[in-house]
């Protein structure tokens, strides 16, 4: 396979790493140049959330793409993309806690209690933290492959919570155009796994 050579190339991984950080660079440049509009805080909170969702879609696309296109080398990028989800999720959470709540932890806790969509987002973030914390090789070894895999199935739940978080946030304005785009992508990616699961069972 010709694609495999590119995927296995030594600079492929660093390249994906740098490309994944471009959105952050773009946001930082925008913030310093005052290009983020009238409400930069809101812009940063939303943009980091958008990028979390995009990387979540990307990382969940790795396995289907790998199987469908028959290029096992794609698996090399899965952990890095997964950690990028966590990276942007952390920026998203920090933006919210810092810009929206002014690092007042009491206010954050009250807000989690008050706003269901914040609660859902927080739960998703806790799960993502679990996944990120068990992402390195030693953790995989000490957990054992089976248990590790079972734990990391949590990412499906994270995807559902993330889209619910986004849906609920937009529900205030009855504005579901973007939500349905991400929702459709995640449906396809999770649906493909479900279909594969049942096909295997039937066999």
């Amino acid at each position, binding site marked *: 396979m010709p694609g495999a050579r590119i995927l296995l190339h030594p600079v492929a991984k660093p390249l994906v790493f740098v490309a994944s950080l471009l959105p952050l660079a773009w946001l930082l440049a925008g913030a310093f140049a005052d290009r983020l509009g009238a*409400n930069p805080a*809101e812009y940063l909170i939303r943009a980091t959330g958008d990028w979390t969702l995009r990387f979540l879609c990307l990382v969940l696309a790795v396995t289907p793409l790998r199987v469908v296109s028959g290029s096992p080398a794609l698996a090399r990028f899965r952990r890095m993309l997964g950690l990028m989800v966590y990276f942007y999720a952390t920026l998203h959470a920090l933006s919210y806690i810092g810009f929206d709540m002014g690092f007042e932890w009491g206010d954050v806790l009250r807000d989690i209690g008050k706003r269901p969509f914040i609660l859902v987002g927080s739960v998703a973030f806790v799960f993502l933290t679990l996944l990120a914390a068990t992402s390195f090789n030693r953790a995989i070894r000490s957990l054992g492959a089976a248990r590790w895999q079972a734990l990391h199935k949590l990412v499906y739940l994270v995807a559902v919570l993330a889209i619910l978080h986004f849906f609920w946030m937009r529900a205030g304005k009855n504005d579901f155009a973007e939500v349905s785009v991400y929702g459709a992508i995640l449906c396809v990616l999770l649906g493909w796994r479900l279909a594969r699961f049942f096909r295997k069972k039937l066999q």
Partner: protein
Amino acid sequence: MLIKSSNTGFIHPVSSDITPQAIYEQRREWLRVMAGGVAGAALAGWAGRDALAQASAAVARPGKLAALPGGRSNFPGAVTMEKLTDYKDASTYNNFYEFGTDKSDPARNAHTLKVSPWMVEVEGAVRKPGKYALEDLLKISAMEERIYRLRCVEGWSMVIPWVGYSLSELIKRVEPLGNARFVEFVTLADPKTMPFVGSRVLDWPYVEGLRMDEAMNPLTLLAFGMYGEVLPNQNGAPVRLVVPWKYGFKSAKSLVKIRFTEKEPATAWNKAAAQEYGFYSNVNPNVDHPRWSQATERRIGEDGLFAKKRKTLMFNGYEAQVGQMYAGMDLKKNY
């Protein structure tokens, strides 16, 4: 609470902190003299910010649209002393769903709005119903500059110099009948010029409403301009409502109909989510939106990224002017 600080709540000042009555009374006289120009201009500027701002109502024009100057407004609450929001922010960060739900959409899309010719129809329980051309509306009363705080239900705020006159001037002219208890404001819903009319976000046209006494309050403004110029399309050209003590969505834009009714009008956001947006929707830091706190707000263009949000004021700081209208009402129920 053992440890007391100035944040603890109501604490009596020490007696030496209290200004003697005689000096307090002199202060007004002193301010008047200073602002009148007896003292040096610099000193007057320092001493009489209040008086000074009223004397020189004119705000620097951005030079984008036709001029619409307004004379000074002299009643309490008409002119806040706070720093004005940049014209650029006020004209590019808008909620005007007929042109898209993103706050940058209206500035991008509203150029299609056709503001001339423009008619506003007055109907319902009035002695003198009729259609008013914009030109006639402009002549009903002298234009005044009103500098109001604008608090959006989403938790941000601006300070905007509007140009217009009290809605009460128009209402007096059309002579409401005894059974007119509410005023309904219907805004333009033209799918040809407004690309998002027809989206399922809200019921179109966008409708707002006020109780008669609210509509008659001198603060309630029929606005034709801002920053000394006619309204930009995205801000509700050519004529809109501005109700500074209520959340921004109550201030309906691009009005085409003003209807006097006996029954409370069914307003757009109330129809869309009654438990979230009440008919009154007065700015109230003590009554949270079901999904977020209303206790604080971010002042656009002023509070830095890391600044703490400022406290939201009861009735957006217009309690002295409007509080009595709601005396005895449970504002938690009538949110």
